[in-house]
């Protein structure tokens, strides 16, 4: 069992901060590195470590002092502007250095950065997430957008208000979200709340620890030198000051959801696009009536307001996450092969005993490509939920986030399908606007093909480095 240095890891890595109901996300351009560094130094006290998680009982006085907390992350250009030397910048993984808006990356992810509202140029530097107990704390942050704020040296590129957090979290299409999350070994959370197959090594999400391949992920570091003070930055295994230790990489994608388009869909089809009913019940455990040609009979419904009878062979039906796809739904008759949750996390669907891949192997393989989601739905100008501010954490872009995006979500040949991508968030990299888009629902006696329009558009995004607390202090002090 690995021991995590919780006091050095930013709190957002180990928790979505559900008790902080209000959140705001600010994206900045750094115009003046020194001023920005000084401002970040001033905010350091509010960046909480993750060691607060096991201490569930927080004293009221403590809470009063900390009515809000921050998550701070930097892009490659942001680190450069704050004064990080080139030889250190070169130790970051190339995906981070190239950024999400890079031409090749856009092909890999299926994006068109030219149509983004923010993030497509070199000016995105700093991400600041504010999580507060109430709305007032969200005011009073530098939000000047037309030019840099002289005190802080920051220009606000965009600000996003998250929807008030409520459990269960419902996203703008009406579906329950955030049901499936990996469990980080050694994080101290209650393991009984998570499925056994969701247990993932910490190195998949936190730099400095072993990942699923039993290797240490490539971590940015300073050049080796004599007499390095360990209090400033810890040392890596080969003696170089490890800038990345206890940090992570953050992917931000600002999605607008076309709710009116989506509401035109029939309830069955909507559920089959996602892979769950609106309540969050998975289709695998609660399939729609078996014969889609027969008319729905009210008496056969499990609940009066939701179709689908429970089937307990794929899981025990208790929770909403204790199901697997193989072998009971290997053909996709309950949850379509191209459905969103099936593409985003195939679980053991890759099993193939004929080729020697057992279910355990398949789960292990799928666990090499997990991401930790931390985003929330956000509100538009009129306070109506408009989309999702997607955030996810990983340590190895090309094996985790980009792999999911390119090889599962946007792969027209996923799972033996011929020419379709994820119906919810997919975009064919060959033609991002090829709509109506086909979507096949496996059926007996034959498959049914429908065509769908575009339900989600990307407004902007970026790749960020979310440092550990010591590293954050080091970076903030660079220009001092």
């Amino acid at each position, binding site marked *: 069992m690995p021991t995590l240095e919780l006091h050095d890891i930013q709190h957002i890595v180990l928790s979505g901060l559900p008790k902080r109901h209000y959140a705001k996300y600010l994206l900045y351009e750094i115009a003046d590195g020194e001023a920005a560094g000084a401002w970040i130094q001033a905010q350091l006290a509010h960046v909480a470590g993750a060691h607060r998680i096991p201490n569930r009982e927080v004293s009221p006085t403590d809470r009063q002092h900390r009515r809000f907390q921050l998550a701070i992350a930097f892009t490659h250009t942001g680190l450069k502007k704050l004064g990080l030397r080139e030889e250190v910048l070169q130790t970051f993984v190339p995906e981070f250095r190239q950024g999400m808006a890079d031409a090749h990356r856009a092909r890999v992810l299926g994006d068109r950065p030219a149509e983004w509202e923010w993030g497509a140029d070199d000016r995105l530097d700093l991400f600041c997430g504010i999580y507060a107990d109430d709305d007032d704390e969200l005011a009073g942050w530098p939000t000047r957008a037309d030019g840099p704020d002289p005190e802080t040296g920051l220009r606000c590129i965009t600000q996003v208000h998250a929807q008030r957090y409520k459990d269960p979290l419902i996203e703008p299409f009406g579906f329950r979200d955030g049901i499936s999350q990996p469990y980080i070994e050694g994080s101290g959370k209650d393991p009984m709340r998570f499925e056994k197959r969701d247990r993932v090594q910490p190195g998949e999400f936190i730099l400095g620890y072993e990942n699923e391949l039993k290797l240490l992920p*490539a971590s940015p570091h300073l050049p080796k030198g004599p007499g390095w003070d360990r209090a400033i930055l810890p040392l890596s295994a080969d003696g170089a000051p490890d800038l990345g230790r206890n940090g992570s990489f953050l992917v931000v994608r600002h999605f607008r959801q076309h709710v009116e388009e989506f509401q035109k869909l029939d309830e069955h089809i909507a559920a089959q696009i996602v892979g769950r009913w609106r309540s969050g019940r998975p289709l695998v455990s609660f399939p729609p009536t078996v014969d889609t040609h027969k008319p729905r009979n009210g008496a056969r419904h499990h609940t009066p307001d939701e179709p689908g009878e429970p089937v307990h062979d794929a899981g025990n039906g208790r929770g909403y996450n204790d199901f697997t796809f193989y072998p009971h739904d290997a053909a996709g008759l309950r949850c379509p092969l191209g459905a969103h949750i099936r593409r985003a996390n195939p679980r053991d669907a890759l099993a193939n005993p004929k080729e020697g891949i057992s279910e355990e192997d398949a789960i292990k393989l799928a666990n090499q490509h997990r991401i930790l989601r931390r985003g929330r739905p956000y509100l538009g100008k009129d306070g109506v939920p408009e989309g999702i501010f997607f955030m996810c954490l990983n340590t190895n872009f090309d094996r985790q986030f980009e792999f999911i995006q390119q090889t599962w979500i946007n792969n027209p040949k996923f799972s033996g399908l011929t020419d379709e991508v994820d119906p919810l968030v997919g975009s064919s990299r*060959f033609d991002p606007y090829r709509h109506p888009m086909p979507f096949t629902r496996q059926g007996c006696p034959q498959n049914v093909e429908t*065509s769908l329009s575009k339900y989600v558009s990307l407004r902007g995004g970026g790749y960020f480095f979310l440092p550990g607390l010591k590293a954050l202090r080091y970076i903030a002090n660079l220009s001092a």
Partner: protein
Amino acid sequence: MALRLEPTRDASEAREDDSIARSQLRTLLARGIHYLSFFVVGPAEDPACGAYVVLEITCDGSARTMRHRLATEAPDFVRALVDSGEASPEELERLLRKHSHRSHAVYEAFPGHSVEQIRLERAVREQARASRVPIGGAATGAGCPYAGKQPLSPTSASAAWDEVRHVLDAVLAVNGEKVPARAFVEHGRTRPFIVRWSPNGHRFCDRANLWARRLGGALLVLAAFLGARVVYHAGLRAIGLCAALGAVHVGLTAFAWVRESPKALKWPGLKAVLRRAAVELGLQALFASAVICAGALAVVAVGRLSANALLWSAVIGVFCAGALIRAGLADVAKLGLGLAAFLAALLPASAWPMTASILVTLAGALPVAGAVLFFHIMDGPFGAVVEGGVVAALWGGLVPFVWESQRFGRADPWLAWVPAIGFLVVMAWATGRLAWWLHEVRTLESKETPDPLFWNLEHLSSVQKSEDITLQNHLAHVANIKQDPRGLRLRTLQRVLRGVNLLARTYFTQGDLATIRTIHFARFVILPDKKRLLFMGNYDGGFSSYLHEFNSVGGVTAVWSNCVGFPRSFYLVGDGASDEQRFKAFGRRYQVPTLGWFSAYPHLGVGDIEAATSTREALRRTLDDPSTFSGRMRARFGEPLTEADCDAALRAL
């Protein structure tokens, strides 16, 4: 076919700006070429390593035909490539031949699929799907050809069949032409010595062809058996009979070949193809007769043969190993059986029953075949012939054979020990060599230190510029072979490549390479300066996921651990590629930007090609077997045919 051309000027200028060359290329690429790519391998610091322009072509037909086509159909392109402005097509062809270079290891997902076959089968599959259900908002089976029809009773099954047949006929015909059972193909890289029949070849043959091949194989075996018996009794006159039987075998195979000719495709190269077919058939006739005649001659020359099963095991083992190295797996089976039958007929003097004799002979062939293959991998053709020959001779007991031939028909058991001991000595020596080799490799490995992780962003951008534009990608990779004073790394690399080539040609012929199903074609070439290894691959999906699949494949480590910059390996196959980020960094660091690349089917994956072939096969089988179609449906559903049944039949596509 991979050509290597030395540039006389700076070859990094983009050739795609030459529009005449491009239009000629378009003509060339319209038929017969799966993939074409060209790129530049820059000079290294070592003065012996010059710069090369590499043209890689994966095509149907022989390399010679391809060179001729290049020189005549796209002369300007070739002139630009070799930088000879005024050369005539004949000179160009000579130049191309001069610079042609064979590949050291080649992998093909589906050996035997021609471009035409892939394209036509894909069209068939699209038509089959289109005739099933339209793309639209329909949530029911509307659009099914049988929608709204009454359930059919058994008596009208034939009427139902007519309708189904009509639909299937329409689906199976593309542009008014019926898709042939198997388009004649022979990829120029490997030249089969005997007609190549892949282990699943019958999937692509229709019934008549299938039976022609089976009969041919059976006839060869029978001919061998009978011929031997006849020769045993009748001497030289029997050679004529053997030759006649061999000719019948060849004739039946020829029938299969002609039926599969590209005539139905209206392939312009028909004459050349038939000429080549004649050459191949002639070769086969020669071989078949030679096997029988040589045996017969041996019998006649040496006199009555004693029952030395070991000697004949050695012969069979050598022949089978040779066939494996040269041709393919099924030919080995054919050969082995034929020879065994031949020789079994010569073992009546033995006290053992016939079956036991055959079994012993075949079982005895395995160690010899294994030894020949081992020496082929260790030392190349020299090893296979010389060292393998020594092994075969020892096993066969040459010495006692000579002694024994002076006495008729009696086998002295104790003499069998001499070759047995000799064979054991050779095996011990071979094992020792293997162990010593691995030990030396391990010594070299333990002295290595892992490189720090490093990415050059500029280089990365230059190779990524042309990636992920279609579903498929090309990878050109030039690695430097580690230099050590005794050349151990180079020798190891050559051995590993021979092993990989053998496996790729005999075992991995069903679309997967060690469970990886995203590679179309891949090849390894050791450059003539013997200091660099060139790898070229055409694969589906992105670079990262492609390399990630090799995470646990030992063969990848075995090849590239001999190259500079690869993560450290453990006994040649361990670790290495499983150091994921270093492995990917190595792949990117030595990748060379591909200047030009063509794919005949850029949006098809390996799985698509396989599915299309299965679809066509399923439909063809249905067409061929009308009497059992309704019977099968009835047996499956136990009731009269309904529209759902027909749906199910077509949905299985």
